[in-house]
């Protein structure tokens, strides 16, 4: 083939510029530390990286969900532990009363009332932006409240529980300052949940302004004795659901009714029984029922502990998966740094050679040099 000087020069310029491009690519890889800077660098690995990052993000979220659930269980465990202690205390009081070793019932009644208030406040414990034991309803009213709301002039029904049937029930509605605004007298009442309609008017027949009102209920039976009254559960039976893995939901038991209603019922019965001056046998019976509700809380704590250890296992699985995935992402993305360095060195050498060749061509002897 006929070859001219300009052809050789043009060719060597072309190869120098091609080699410069390859050198620039190798430099990008070395300086960014990444084999894959654009999808086209390795389309399949780039896709794999995106999938891996998605999985990583999912694992992170599951870990966060699980940690939150475990924190809830920890808080619940502390709460239920206190509840057990208070109930044991109440049981001791009932023991000493039913064995007839003491005669001063007054102090004990006060103490039982305090314990009842403590249990109620534990049952109404707040958690996050809602309540701990409200089931999945978790509304803005406490699960065991003695509250009734008036909105747009319409009042809710007044809800409460009674341990036995009653013949007469008195409900006092108080405003936020503690003033009694309305007294309702209802004849009759059943054991279980009672729902009393209130027209939202005060004692003078005037409409009350919208807002929350407290109420207290007292009831007596046909024999004129006090009937045990305690707050009704406003929450739901469904537990709190947490997404702990793909297509996997863990339910946390926060059904306040199952946990606290028996205890609140038996405590209010004990207080009523003492006030009514019941005999030691009756108190002993109540003590036995109290033991049942202590047992039920213990069993809920056991279940909770086993859910917690399941969550721990899941958490450590996701931690392992995250570590593995991170190292896979690192490997895919960065590749071998030694390899990158060697490639860069090779491209540099090739570039130098292309330039050296161009120099030779430019310095090549010409016929005119010899004429």
């Amino acid at each position: 083939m006929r070859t001219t000087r300009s052809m050789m020069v043009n060719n060597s310029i072309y190869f120098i510029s091609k080699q410069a491009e390859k050198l620039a690519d190798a430099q990008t890889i070395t300086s960014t530390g990444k084999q894959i800077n654009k999808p086209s660098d390795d389309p399949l690995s780039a896709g794999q990286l995106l999938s891996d990052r998605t999985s990583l993000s999912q694992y992170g979220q599951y870990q966060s969900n699980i940690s939150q659930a475990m924190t809830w269980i920890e808080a619940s465990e502390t709460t239920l532990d206190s509840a057990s202690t208070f109930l044991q205390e109440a049981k001791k009081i009932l023991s000493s009363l039913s064995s007839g070793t003491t005669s001063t019932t007054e102090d004990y009644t006060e103490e039982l009332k305090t314990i009842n208030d403590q249990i109620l406040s534990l049952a109404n414990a707040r958690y996050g932006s809602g309540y701990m034991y409200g089931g999945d309803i978790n509304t803005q009213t406490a699960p065991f409240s003695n509250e009734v709301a008036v909105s747009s002039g319409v009042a809710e029904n007044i809800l409460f529980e009674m341990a036995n049937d009653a013949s007469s029930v008195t409900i006092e509605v108080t405003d936020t300052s503690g003033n009694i605004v309305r007294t309702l007298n209802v004849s009759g009442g059943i054991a279980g949940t009672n729902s009393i309609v209130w027209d939202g008017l005060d004692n003078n027949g005037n409409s009350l302004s919208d807002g929350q009102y407290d109420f207290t209920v007292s009831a007596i039976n046909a024999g004129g004795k006090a009937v045990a009254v305690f707050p009704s559960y406003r929450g739901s039976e469904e537990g709190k659901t947490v997404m702990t893995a793909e297509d996997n939901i863990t339910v946390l038991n926060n059904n306040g009714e199952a946990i606290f209603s028996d205890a609140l019922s038996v405590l209010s019965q004990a207080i009523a029984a003492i006030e009514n001056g019941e005999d030691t046998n009756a108190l002993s019976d109540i003590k036995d029922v109290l033991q049942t509700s202590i047992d039920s809380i213990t069993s809920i704590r056991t279940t909770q502990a086993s859910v917690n250890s399941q969550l721990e296992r899941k958490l450590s699985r996701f931690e392992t998966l995250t570590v593995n995935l991170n190292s896979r992402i690192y490997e895919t993305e960065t590749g071998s740094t030694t390899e990158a360095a060697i490639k860069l060195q090779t491209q540099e050498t090739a570039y130098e050679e292309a330039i050296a060749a161009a120099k030779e061509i430019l310095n090549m002897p010409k016929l005119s040099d010899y004429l």
Partner: protein
Amino acid sequence: MTTTTGIIYTALSALNTYSGSINVTSTNIANVETTGYCRQQAVIRSVGIVGSGVELSTVRRIYNAFLTTQLRSANEDLGKWEVENEILSEIEEIFTDTDDYGLSSALNDFWNAWQDVANDPSSTTARSVLASCSGSLADVFNSTSSDLKDIQASINDAVSSTVEEINLLVNQIADMNQKISQAAATEESVNTYQDSLDTLVLDLSSLIDISTYTNESGQICIQVADGKPLVEETTVWSLSTEKNTMTGMQDVTWVDSEGNAQVITGNITNGKLGGYLEIRDDVIPSYLAELDELAVKIMDEVNSLHTGGYDMDGQPGVSFFTGTGADDIAVNAEILADSEKIAAAATADGASGDGTNAIAIAELQNSLVLDGGTTTFSDYYTALVSEIGLKVQSAQASYESASDTAEFRKSQVASVSSVSTDEEIAKLALYQSAYEAAAKLTSVLDEMLETIIEM
């Protein structure tokens, strides 16, 4: 009979011929770096019977028509892949997700935000975070779609300007054809005109796929798009553009002698224009369609679950997303204004505390909803990114191979037509000595004439 005067004429013809030849050589040397210049060769022949001398019969232009045609076709490929490689790399930028930005991570954040709402449904913080993550997701969809459309629009402008460039070149080619026919009439050399003509046609070939033929007088005739003439000797047809009412894009048209425009967009397959049209009409619309498919499916699936749930006030959920595709997907303004409108609960009673509907929506990330129920949202997007990566990779490979081929064809053409200074210097030496010999002959004849006169 040979006369002394006759011999003088012979010597003179030799002097003329070799100075003319040296002129050709000097033209070659002068144009050693001129682009498109084909070396010329002095064709010397003896004139008639013995004693009549020598003449420079023609100055031949050295070139190979076949190699030139091959170079043009390599140049068409180069034009096409240069454009495609460049634009696809630009498109790839749009789909290059970094660790914390891009559609993929926006999707991840979106699903995670739903789970955070499920963890604490009455938390306004979790709800606001969800609303803002959803807004970001919609934004990424919007910007990806509008970035693609911007590229499409700028290609559309490039199509129009390329058509103008083609018309300009076509007119210059016709002018050159004209000059060649005039020069032929006056027996002037057409070599320089033919060099210019070849350069113009080579430039044209990088813009559009053409077929050419050269007529007996050396004029080049050009056709495009399956036989539509652009140049026939000195007659010119022009290309034009016309807005397609369906796509809103410029169609390329060929205007016939009566001034009627015919759409030839689909018949242009190579050169820069072919590359522009392919990306504008096939590649970008297919990516936009896939993006729309993804956006619409997310809207449909999320909306269908969301409207089946209940917001914090126990009201049935509103549509979570509004819009019709990737370009206008947006979070419902009601939700942006009030995050309590997010329907996290599955029942009206649950309202503020139930997160089961939020979990159901978060579970969508793992459901196979696309490609006829075989692919998740993330996998669909991942496949799209891989597809674009592969497309760019193959365009890069095609571009490299096209530029290698074009370079090879160029050097083949150069091998025939480029000036070698060594050759020219050798010829110069040759012509110089021939000229010196003829001059010597003249001086001998002069002496001979003097001898005759002194007789």
